[in-house]
């Protein structure tokens, strides 16, 4: 799965956004390929915002799922969601194969 990363500008980020994305890359390595937000192959764009105002415009993102991460906890939720979806997808493929 390819996921586009779009950062907010980070004027008063409550956490280290770049460090968090590096951690995400580690945690979902093999399952998710992180690409630029404009990559046409990205199925989802993850908006990494430094605070809850999440001020980045999502206008340019069309036809793709959008998720927001505004804190470290959000990132945990997102990882869980992605891994569960991938598990479910694998399950479906295996069921079809049987």
């Amino acid at each position, binding site marked *: 799965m390819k996921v586009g990363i779009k950062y907010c500008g*980070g004027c*008063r980020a409550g956490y280290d956004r770049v460090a968090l994305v590096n951690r995400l890359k580690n945690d979902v390595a093999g399952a998710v390929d992180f690409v630029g937000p404009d990559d046409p192959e990205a199925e989802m764009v993850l908006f990494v915002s430094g605070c809850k105002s999440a001020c980045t415009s999502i206008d340019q993102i069309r036809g793709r799922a959008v998720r927001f991460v505004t804190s470290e906890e959000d990132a945990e939720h997102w990882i869980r969601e992605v891994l569960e979806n991938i598990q479910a997808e694998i399950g479906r493929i295996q069921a079809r194969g049987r």
Partner: protein
Amino acid sequence: MGKLMNAKEYEESLRKLKLNVYMFGRKVENPVDDPIIRPSMNAVAATYEFAHRPEYEDIMTAKSHITGKKINRFTHIHQSVDDLVKKSKMGRLLGSLTACCFQRCVGMDALNALSITTHAIDAKYNTEYYKRFLKYLEYVQENDLVCDGAMTDPKGDRSLAPSKQFDPDLFMHVVEERPDGIVVSGAKAHQTGAVNSHEIIVMPTITMREEDKDYAISFALPSDTEGITYIMGRQSCDTRKLEGMTFDRGNMHYGGHEALVVFDKVFVPWERVFMYKEYEFTTQLVENFAAYHRQSYACKVGVGDVLIGATQTIAEFNGTERASHVKDKIIEMNHLNETLFCGCIACAAEGHREPSGTYLVDVLLANVHKQNITRFPYEIARLAQDIAGGLVVTCPSAADLASPEVGKWVEKYLKTKPDVPTEHRLRILRLIENITMGTAAVGYLTESMHGAGSPQAQRIMIARLVNMKQKQKMARFLCGIDSSGA
């Protein structure tokens, strides 16, 4: 995408300029590599570098309304309230990344103010200033240029109008009109980032009346136009930068600069003239530029972020971080700093569209914001010095710490804890010194006081813009003087 320069390309573009720069009484042949000027070039270069970083680009770039291309926000004309808010956020972001004046906001503010006024003059006189302006703007955007916003004249005797001064050059004025353009003389004082700029945009500094119409001029020129001379301003502790990369400079990467810029009979072609004797539009231009520029002091919030971080760090190094008064003082620093942030966000969020399509900040709130800026950084700096301790001004030099003779004594007696290297303690103290009384205090303190207009200029605007009648009406109704009010 237009030409979104990176830091290296910006530096190379400066090398091509043939600027006539003087400092310490001597001509500076190579300003880019001059050790005094270099940190200020680094700070402007950062505005280019960060525009290319994914984690900052959402703030640092915008979409040009004339070409549709992605451009550096510093060359953008605000097209929405969101643009205005992003501008404030960009100020804080860059202030926190550089801890100094990054110099590029003043040109952006000049461009935005001119976009409104050139349009307004054309609407009245059927002139073609706006068309000229848009062509110029496209050139600036396409080449990703730095513009010096040059408003402040030397002004001579402050009690006299331009045409009444003993020397007519104390305000920039036209000295000759030619078929192909005009010739101007005068000077602009305190020009931020002048020597790091590709262009200089000149505007009148005060409201002009009919008798001063020769002074009611606005134009833009390449910074290396013949007849323009730059005389660098001194900053406190500036020559520490001649001592090599020692930590005594406080900020190891960045700085700012100002210069006195002299125009000695300089030719301006008509296509670069944006106002010519339409004196009745000077008030609008000055007030809108001032409002935008007062918003731009969002940068001080970012510098405040660094100063607060440095203060917390020295408290921890000194072992005072758990003392209740220290904690409370740091809360106060944050409270003041975030209050400043409220002001720059509020004036942007309450912005509106002008007839040219440009979005302008709420002028009253921009003035309130700047008025706070004239005060709070001083208090934040005072609290930082309180917590830092006297060593912030009595600390031996980096060379003493490195000395084979006395280094051991500096190391021994200035150490606070086994796990805190003495050098780290001295470094953070030097940074606090730099921001509160060294080279960066030019930007954090005195520029906060006078830049974009001295405090009284904001108070005059506040008095003019509040709706006093409405406040009185509500008071009179609620206490029963009047029977209607709500």
